[in-house]
């Protein structure tokens, strides 16, 4: 795929995140998709696992939203820098934590192939409460 097409796919992937549309996101993924973060001990492997992980984020942060400020494509990779915002909800969080605002900087490096997104690595810039989600 061309770099322009790679850029379009990653842009659509973040649009799917912001639309809270896990099916749309999963449709962009390669069969062998792997997702890692610097906060989660084990990677997410495959479309179904990615869909489930995404829905878990939406359960804990029902208004989760990414604002992208840098997108760069080089070769088969796309680098995206973002600010994510949201409000914690759900039984995972304590009563004190529920309602707390999330505002977190980070970036994602994505690798693409003919089948779509092969690999993503999310880097969260600070230690944060989403470790609760990552631990699931």
């Amino acid at each position, binding site marked *: 795929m061309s770099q322009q097409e790679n850029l379009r796919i990653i842009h659509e992937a973040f649009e799917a995140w912001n639309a809270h549309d896990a099916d749309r996101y999963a449709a962009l993924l390669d069969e062998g998709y792997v997702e890692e973060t610097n906060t989660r001990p084990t990677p997410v492997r495959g479309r179904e696992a990615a869909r489930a992980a995404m829905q878990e984020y939406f359960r804990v942060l029902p208004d989760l939203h990414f604002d992208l400020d840098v997108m*760069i494509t080089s070769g088969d990779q796309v*680098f995206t*820098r973002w600010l994510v915002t949201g409000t914690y909800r759900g039984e995972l969080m304590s009563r004190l934590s529920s309602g707390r605002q999330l505002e977190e*900087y980070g970036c994602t490096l994505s690798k693409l192939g003919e089948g779509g997104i092969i690999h993503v*690595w999310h*880097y969260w810039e600070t230690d944060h409460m989403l470790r609760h989600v990552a631990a699931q």
Partner: protein
Amino acid sequence: MARYIFIVSLRHRALYDYLLQRFSFDPNAQVILDRRRGERRQAEIPAVPEHRRADRRQRSDVSEELRLRSVAVVTIP
């Protein structure tokens, strides 16, 4: 084709290591660690010849960006 320089804050060594590994075979991307200390960044601001001011301004912008964020990206057209 544009080239990109990823300048990673010293506070985010894990990000630097990862980007360095992932872009190691990409001739259009370079990943560097910002090892400058605060005092040296301030020292870069003083008056410079006219033709170098734009470059200095860009460096100053990068320094400010790295104060807030883990990584800044400079594009070389």
